[in-house]
């Protein structure tokens, strides 16, 4: 039992080194996302702070299958809004990065079951985010 205990600990130590890389990747992604959002947000606030908030936000909405190209057509003449949207999309990609990193982690450890499981999760995420762009 003592051997088994330390074997688990060794694996945990090895995992921790790989997880550290994952942590760095995530932090970079989050930082970039927040940078874009803050930059866009502050510029927008500077230009529009005293305006009254758009009424359409407060009205009852029905489901509307708007493509992201259309959102860009409507709003992106204002670059600050474009920056915010880009930041949001980068943010939505961070869990994707995380799952991809996990898949790589498991591939390195030759843990085939989990490579497959990670691929399944990745596929679902790509389907969801990709649905906007198709």
């Amino acid at each position, binding site marked *: 039992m003592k051997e088994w205990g330390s074997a*688990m*600990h060794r694996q*945990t130590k090895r*995992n*921790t080194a790989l*997880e*550290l890389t*994952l*942590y760095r990747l*995530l*932090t970079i*992604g*989050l930082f970039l996302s*927040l940078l874009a*959002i*803050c930059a*866009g*947000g502050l510029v*927008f*606030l500077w230009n529009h*702070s*005293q*305006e*009254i*908030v*758009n009424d359409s*936000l407060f009205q009852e*909405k029905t*489901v*509307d*299958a*708007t*493509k*992201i190209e259309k959102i860009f057509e409507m709003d992106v003449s204002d670059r600050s*809004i474009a920056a*915010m949207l880009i*930041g*949001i*999309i980068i*943010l*939505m990609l*961070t*869990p*994707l990065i*995380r*799952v991809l990193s*996990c898949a790589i*982690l*498991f591939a390195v450890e030759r843990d085939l*079951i*989990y490579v497959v*499981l990670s691929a*399944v*999760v990745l596929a*679902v*995420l790509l389907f*969801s*985010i990709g*649905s*906007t762009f198709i």
Partner: protein
Amino acid sequence: MTVLATVLILFSGSLLAGFLGALSGLGGGIVVIPLLTLGLGIDIHYAIGTSLVAVIATSTASSCAYIKDGYTNIRIGILLETATTLGAICGVAVASQMPATMLSLLFGCFLIYCTISSLLPTKTTSAAFSSDRLALALNLPSTYPTKHSWQGYAVHHVPLSYFIMLVAGGLSGILGIGSGALKVVALDRVMGLPFKVSTTTSNFMIGVTATASAGLYLKMGYIDPIITSPVVVGITCGSFIGARLLPHVSTNVLRQLFACLIFVIGLQMIGKIL
């Protein structure tokens, strides 16, 4: 209301939401939606879109801290995420068919039940060699850091947890939450993980679940950058502060905090119907 005033309210509310969320394993989306709908009168579809993005932010921000500390169990996370993401896609798909009021009521009742059960005496953590066969086959048991060393723990009831995660994913798609409450309860009570492993692994998972839903909400045009941005920034700052505090807070305090939070949420959900 001016843009400035709205942004300030959203930012400060989200700051609190992020702080509480990081400590309790919830996404903070549960605080964000009432803030937007009840507090500011914003249409619920935009609130859900914003909430989903906010949950992703909380999850990523908290995970950055937790992955380093070694609490999160990635294998359990990935395994159960196959359930939550599929559930989320189905959830968004059936969202138009199902009456939200019915779901709110069920969810509220479930949370009340969870509050009661989470206040029951804590179980002792069993050593890893008492895990279920399936858990061992899938290499799920692991260790987590305590003050002196790495403590092993066991994993149980994998199929039941998987089923609960399907439901959790569905709820995420319909209600716009990360389903953190349900995930922590499943990991803690059903799988039998140490509480801090449950909350951190839940944090890891809710971001993925929310992304699955958020992608479709983006397609539908329900993510408005003007309200989403201050919420994201606020909730991230709150999460970082909360995540830094986690290793220094006792498990009992976390349990009580969690119990209070989900009780209030449960009442809110039921109150919406009446």
